[in-house]
């Protein structure tokens, strides 16, 4: 977009107090002034799009490279496509994505089973490490769980 007032340099005092040393991003950023060219910069070739890519609403075109892992699929994919109809500013972008992630976990389980494997969840969760290095805590938790179970059971029986 062009500045509304093309004559801005004629405004009394324009630029008088500008201080090039006042650059709070130094030394992380090497300010060149190129920011004012916006997105007109030299680009690499375009990576061909071989899988479905959900793109941020805040971009005009896809980036020159991108990742192609785990394209959207299934119910979680439907939710992700919905999420990407909204900008990164919106809750309705991020919250559906978290929901999709949780659903995706169950889809993953179903996929595993379809491929004839029952995932070893105890191993995937690395629980042997807790048993090896944090045993008292594991036992404490197990006892707490059992105690809660027994109390609930007793209460339930008494009600009857």
């Amino acid at each position, binding site marked *: 977009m062009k500045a509304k007032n093309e004559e801005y340099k004629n405004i009394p005092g324009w630029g008088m107090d500008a201080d090039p040393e006042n650059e*709070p991003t130094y*030394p*992380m*950023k*090497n*300010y*060149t002034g*190129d*920011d004012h*060219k*916006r*997105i007109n*910069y*030299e*680009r*690499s*070739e375009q*990576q061909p799009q071989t899988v479905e*890519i*959900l*793109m*941020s609403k*805040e*971009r005009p075109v*896809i*980036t*020159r*490279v*991108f*990742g*192609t*892992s*785990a394209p*959207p699929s299934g119910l*979680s994919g439907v939710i992700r496509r919905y*999420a990407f109809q909204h900008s*990164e*500013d919106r809750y309705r*972008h*991020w919250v559906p*994505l*978290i929901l999709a*992630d949780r659903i*995706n*976990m169950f889809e*993953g*389980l179903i996929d595993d089973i379809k491929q004839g494997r029952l*995932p*070893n*969840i105890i*191993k*995937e*969760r*690395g*629980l*042997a*490490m*807790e048993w090896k*290095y*944090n045993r008292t805590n594991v036992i404490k938790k197990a006892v707490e769980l059992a105690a809660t179970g027994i109390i609930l059971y007793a209460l339930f029986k008494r009600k009857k």
Partner: protein
Amino acid sequence: MLAMNYRGPYRVRAEQRPMPEILHPEDAIVRVTRTCICGSDLHLYHGMVPDTRVGSTFGHEFTGIVEEVGPLVQKLKVGDQVLVPFNIACGKCNFCKQGLYGNCHESNPMATAVGGIFGYSHTAGGFNGGQAEYVRVPYADFGPTVIPPQMDPDDAVLLTDVVPTGYQAAEMGGIKEGDTVVVFGAGPVGIMAARCAWFFGPSRVIIIDHVDYRLEFARNYAHCEAYNFKEMADPVVFLKKATDWYGADVCIDCVGCEAEGNTLQTFSGRVALMQAGAATALQWAINSVKKGGIVSVVGVYGPPFNLVPFGNILNKGITVRANQSSVKRLLPRLIDHVMAGRLNPKGLITHRVPLEEISDAYRLFSSKLDNCIKTVLIPSAKH
């Protein structure tokens, strides 16, 4: 090839997966020789980052040997031993041209709020990561850096993230000679930030955590004071008192969105997910820095927002500086520090684990078991 496979929160496994391919003329395929698990990976592992898809391979800290290059790659050659910065950067966009390699505009179509990162969810570009035998590396002429022949490979792998991140955390603090610097978090990043702070000339460096073995490690490794916040009635009052009731000159947040220590933050951020994680350390940083002080943030927070005392930033005139580390920008200086023996990155490594045992390695680091500071995974691909 063997690669990590994410199956849902707290569930990862190593299994045979398809080899990566060249998808862009400037790509390279790298055979991974070492790869680490980062505190950032824990945010993914705990299901905290939106759009973390089942079936993804994590891993953004890795070194390797170039196996194959795309037709437009000119500088990098097959057989080169490289360390690969965690940010994917084109080197040409206006952000890259100004040294903001963590904010490249041509590596992540899925979000404008963050640049592309290897193996870091679709919010960071949907790239498969380096916790695998092989990995696709885009913009191969720009990011990958040939490892100096005399450099220890264990030092090299830590230069992909932990060292530059810790260094930038200190750099963003604008530390002046004689300053008192407080670092929150004694994980690998916090310990490195505390160590690197000394390069800028402070008179005191204090680190805060609640895990005693990490505090002990930090005290020795980073030559700093180390205190356990669980032993303080009020960490902010403790730090005010420790700085003559003035406030620290610089506070650095190396914890990020999974902080402990404040019930309201923990509940709203980590249980109810009403904010993007718990901002406890950031809150403490803002409230214990002096008026006109600087808060530097490298601890990761995700979208959409966090609860922080913004009014105090305003009324105290605090400057907040934050970013993903710009690894490529800092590498020349840091390689120099390492080669001159001023920095000893590999001293952070406590565990070496074959890639096959990745599930155990994640648990060990996540639950802080067996005095774990930093884990290196070694893929066994012979070829």
